[in-house]
């Protein structure tokens, strides 16, 4: 599956016609959507918590350099190393370098969207190192050769039958006559297969939900425990993270840990919250001997000081995705990018360029549900609109629409002309109507591809008002 954000319209069409996708998308609404609503109600004053989260992240984003330097010092003090990657290629090289120095052949991976973003896995494979995804959803799609379709539930689009089919095809050492009817059987099989991989791994790579500057710690929020086995068993642990994940200290992390699971799945807390601060302690038998953090910029710093800066507050909870009606109609693969839904629409035009990701910013009704559920109050539709303005100003917007809009705007600034034009249009549309509606204009696309247009009365309000007064 190739990822191309420019192919969004075709990919969306395909997704709309995919019968397997609809029930999966329905489940997101009933599970994650309802879950969040319940958690918000139970918490009480959730608004104050959102305000607190926004303030913590705003402070971090506007003090990013200071906090990253503090973080680096704290990591160094605990015997770890911080690496700085300007872009995806540099990040890949740095990570490869660390793994080669460690003589690593197999690497287990906790879930990390940043490693998707920088396309790490194929690069490692091309260099003779085997990455093994251990988050169940990531493992399943790794076996299938698919990209994730959601930022926290990467395989949500699959049915259990599809997962069973994949396990039968890829776990060839196991008895082909075994039963994989039950979800539980699938989970137990993955548990057994991956336990061997955990034990044998030379290195472990995780992401970070948060970086705590003062203590030099990376924090992961999970339910499975795979991130922990990834960190604790091998001798090298690498944290790969965006630069914007840092906050001032662990008390700030404690506040965000109240916000993230509730916003994501509706849980008051995820099963495991793990604070990873460097190498194994003196005399400890678990934990890495080498601790590395790779800080990835890849277009993030470019957003500072722009109208899109607020997007850097994101804590990657997926609430916006779960509540978006457009994502809810087409799913994640249609976006053709690592980040999808509203957060993708706000981030991608900035990080990939407007020409590449224009559809993401345009395929929105600005219904505002995303901004309403965002735990850190990112004004997502406002940022999407900003990208549309950039697109318009660069002359990149599709000509048909911009010309039509320009014509209409020309008239809208000239009341007499507008009145005249509106009267003609009203009369024309009325004439074209049959049985109360206009069914098509010469080209049956746009509005008329899927709808009729209710016939106007024939005389505009302003004309009638003028006549009456």
């Amino acid at each position: 599956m190739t990822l191309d954000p420019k192919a969004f319209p075709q990919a969306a069409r395909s997704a709309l016609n995919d019968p397997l996708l609809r029930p999966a998308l329905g489940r997101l609404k009933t599970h994650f959507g309802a879950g969040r609503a319940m958690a918000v109600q139970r918490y009480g004053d959730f608004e104050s918590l959102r305000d607190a989260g926004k303030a913590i992240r705003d402070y971090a984003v506007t003090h990013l350099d200071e906090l990253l330097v503090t973080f680096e010092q704290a990591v160094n003090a605990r015997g770890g190393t911080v690496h700085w990657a300007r872009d995806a290629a540099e990040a890949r090289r740095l990570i490869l370098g660390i793994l080669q120095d460690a003589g690593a052949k197999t690497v287990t991976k906790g879930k990390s969207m940043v490693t998707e973003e920088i396309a790490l896995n194929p690069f490692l494979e091309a260099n003779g190192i085997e990455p093994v995804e251990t988050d169940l959803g990531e493992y399943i799609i790794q076996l299938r050769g698919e990209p994730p379709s959601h930022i926290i539930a990467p395989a949500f689009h699959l049915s259990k039958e599809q997962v069973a089919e994949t396990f039968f095809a890829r776990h060839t050492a196991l008895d082909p006559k075994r039963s994989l009817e039950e979800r539980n059987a699938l989970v137990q099989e993955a548990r057994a297969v991956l336990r061997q991989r955990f034990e044998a791994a030379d290195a472990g790579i995780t992401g970070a939900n948060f970086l705590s500057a003062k203590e030099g710690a990376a924090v992961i929020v999970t339910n499975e425990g795979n991130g922990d086995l990834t960190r604790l068993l091998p001798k090298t642990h690498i944290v790969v993270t965006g630069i914007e994940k840092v906050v001032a200290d662990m008390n700030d992390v404690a506040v965000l840990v109240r916000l993230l699971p509730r916003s994501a799945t509706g849980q008051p807390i995820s099963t495991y919250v793990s604070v990873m601060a460097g190498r194994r302690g003196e005399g400890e038998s678990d934990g890495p001997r080498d601790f590395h953090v790779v800080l990835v910029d890849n277009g993030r710093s470019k957003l500072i000081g722009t109208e899109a800066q607020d997007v850097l507050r994101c804590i990657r909870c997926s609430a916006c995705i779960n509540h978006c009606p457009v994502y809810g109609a087409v799913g994640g693969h249609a976006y053709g990018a690592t980040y999808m839904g509203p957060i993708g629409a706000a981030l991608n035009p900035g990080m990939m360029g407007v020409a590449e990701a224009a559809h993401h910013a345009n395929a929105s009704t600005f219904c505002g549900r995303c901004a309403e559920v965002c735990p850190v109050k990112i004004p997502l539709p406002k940022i999407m609109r900003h990208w549309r303005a950039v697109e318009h100003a660069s002359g990149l917007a599709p000509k048909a629409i911009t010309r039509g809009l320009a014509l209409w705007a020309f008239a809208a600034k000239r009341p007499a002309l507008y009145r005249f034009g509106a009267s003609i249009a009203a009369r024309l549309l009325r004439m074209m109507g049959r049985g109360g509606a206009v069914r098509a204009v010469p080209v049956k696309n746009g509005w008329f591809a899927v709808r009729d247009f209710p016939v106007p009365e024939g005389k505009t309000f302003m004309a009638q008002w003028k006549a009456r007064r």
Partner: protein
Amino acid sequence: MSERPRVGLFVTCLVDLVRPQIGFAAVKLLEQAGCEVAVPATQTCCGQPAWNAGADSDAKDIARAAIAAFEGFDYVVAPSGSCAGMIKRHYPEVFETDAEWLPRARALAQKTHELMSFLVKVRGVTGVPAGFAHKVCYHDSCSSLREMGVKAEPRALLGTVEGLSIEEIKDPQGCCGFGGLFSVKYPEISERMADDKIADACGTGADTLIGGDLGCLLHLAGRMKRQGKTMAVRHAAEVLADMGGEKALGEP
């Protein structure tokens, strides 16, 4: 509450072009509520289509004209959460860096209202002398809900219409898929969203769908007509102004 406040009616371009009776219904309701209603002759549009498309310079020109046309009134009222929302929530954004127009935009935003919430919250209207003996379901537009905070007021007023009963749809927060130019740029996605909303509406057993934003209603009525569905679609203002006997949207 002031005696006979002067209200500038922001009729909206869709109402003007497609369904003027909504404008007349709004005038009737406002006059019934003791307002002196004027309709500035120079109004054309709030500029939202240009603003949402990122055509900022056009949006600014259109918005300046709207501000100039309406800033002299005590209140500006629109039979639309979307247009009222553009003025109230977004005009200050449009003129964020404009020292001359920002205060004027803010002043106008302050006194701009969606019709039904204006009647209930500002004029204290508690009921309307109208009849509409139908089981209806109500569509909250996203802008009414999330930009203007309008949810209880339409229901409060419709509840006093003789013979009318409201059956709530299952997912009132969900977008209908209109979204202005979205409906023509991504018609198949817009279609799916409409179909989900229509299925929800039909599931209530109501014979009429009522809403406060004509854009949503044209999109839903147009889709239902294409599907051959018979549910009638009307704007809330028409029903509240006792004009429920006229033809519904798209009715032959």
